């Protein structure tokens, strides 16, 4: 629980450093992207710091390329 709070505080600190500059320059699209990325980053960092076992994003790669691998292996007889 402590580590979650620490990571969220770090995320808020990073946001406090960068967001006012973007707001002053009226770059609202940049702010939107920034907040989405920071939210994703905080979530992933909390998962990482608690070392929970989560499904990897590489499952996508396995789903796409395992049939390719099977096909090529069949053709060349690996």
């Amino acid at each position: 629980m402590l580590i979650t709070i620490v990571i969220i505080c770090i995320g808020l600190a990073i946001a406090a450093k960068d967001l006012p500059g973007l707001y002053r320059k009226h770059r609202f699209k940049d702010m939107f992207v920034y907040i989405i990325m920071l939210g994703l980053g905080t979530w992933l960092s909390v998962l990482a710091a608690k070392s929970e076992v989560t499904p990897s994003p590489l499952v996508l790669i396995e789903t796409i390329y395992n049939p390719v691998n099977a096909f090529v292996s069949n053709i060349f007889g690996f």
Partner: protein
Amino acid sequence: MEEKGRISIPNIAVLVFLSIIGDCVLVYPSLITAISKQDAWISSFLSIPAGLAVLLLLLRVHQLYPELTFIQLCQRILGPWLGALISIWYLFHLMMNSAIYLREVGDFMNSQTYVMTPLPVINLLLILVLMWGMYMGLEPIARTAQILFPLCLAFALFLILCLLPQCESQQLKPIMEQGIPKIMEGSLFALSYPFGELAFLLMIFPYVSKKPGLKKSVLLAGLTASVLLSVLLLVSLMVLGPFVTEHSVYTSYTLSKKINIGNFLQRVESLMSTAWIITTFVKTILHFYAFTLGMTQLLRLDNVRTFLGPSFMILFGLIIVSAPNITYYLDTIVHAWIYWDLTDSVVLPLLLLVVYKFRSKGRHSLGPG
């Protein structure tokens, strides 16, 4: 956002060299040997011409519009929608690659040197150095790589030279026992691991200052680096034998423990691992640099430095999340991973090249770069 720094021709040669041997030098021998056993050195040497062809293809695509990065090339040649789709795919590849490299270094340190330290702490140390380099920009990264390059080269040559007395060619027999298909599969891996991950070069090439001589020096760097890797594989096969090479995860580390000259020159493995961490670090920082630059260009953001903070938080999380354990990325995913690498470094540049040829012939002609 535009990158102000320009890197010179020797710098890009050094970067190509370090990013070919980086991270492969640790796991390459055991990966190839797991497939083609004692013929792994044949696979490795066979893959060199194909790897140089991949480099030539990347250089050819770069010459279509020498000023544009891969993301801008996609937007210009394929149009906004298909271009954006392919750019997202490419950025995902860069991001996952940099996470996996840092994970490899972290696991290596965690299992060999800092056994009691938790993995996220080692990752945090690596990320802090990465952050420092990224805030500096491309030019300081390239110059740092050039300063550290002689160290890496000297350590690699030292390793090979000190192990020459222990080489036994008997370990390589029987030659071709596995048959041709296994050797071909091994060389597919040997092609994909060092060369298939060079797709990030298309994001770096536009910032090379003087263009003449680019092709020659990049190809020369690729040739020397891949010959070095193959010789390392050959030495590890002859010293350790195919069985130990296959089953020790960090073969080069095991090899450097074998150095013993007159009971005097020994225990140099920490120096060796320093050199390999440097090479992997250069490869990772280039991948991550290409990722942030590409993201800025894809979303047309203002300044890349503003977005470094969230990017590092995502990277810190992805290092742990991307793989549940070491077996996953060294054994489970590798068969899918090689085709992923080859898609990004061969299929996508070929697609760009073919579409460019068709469009420049047809009525929808493209403007000059």
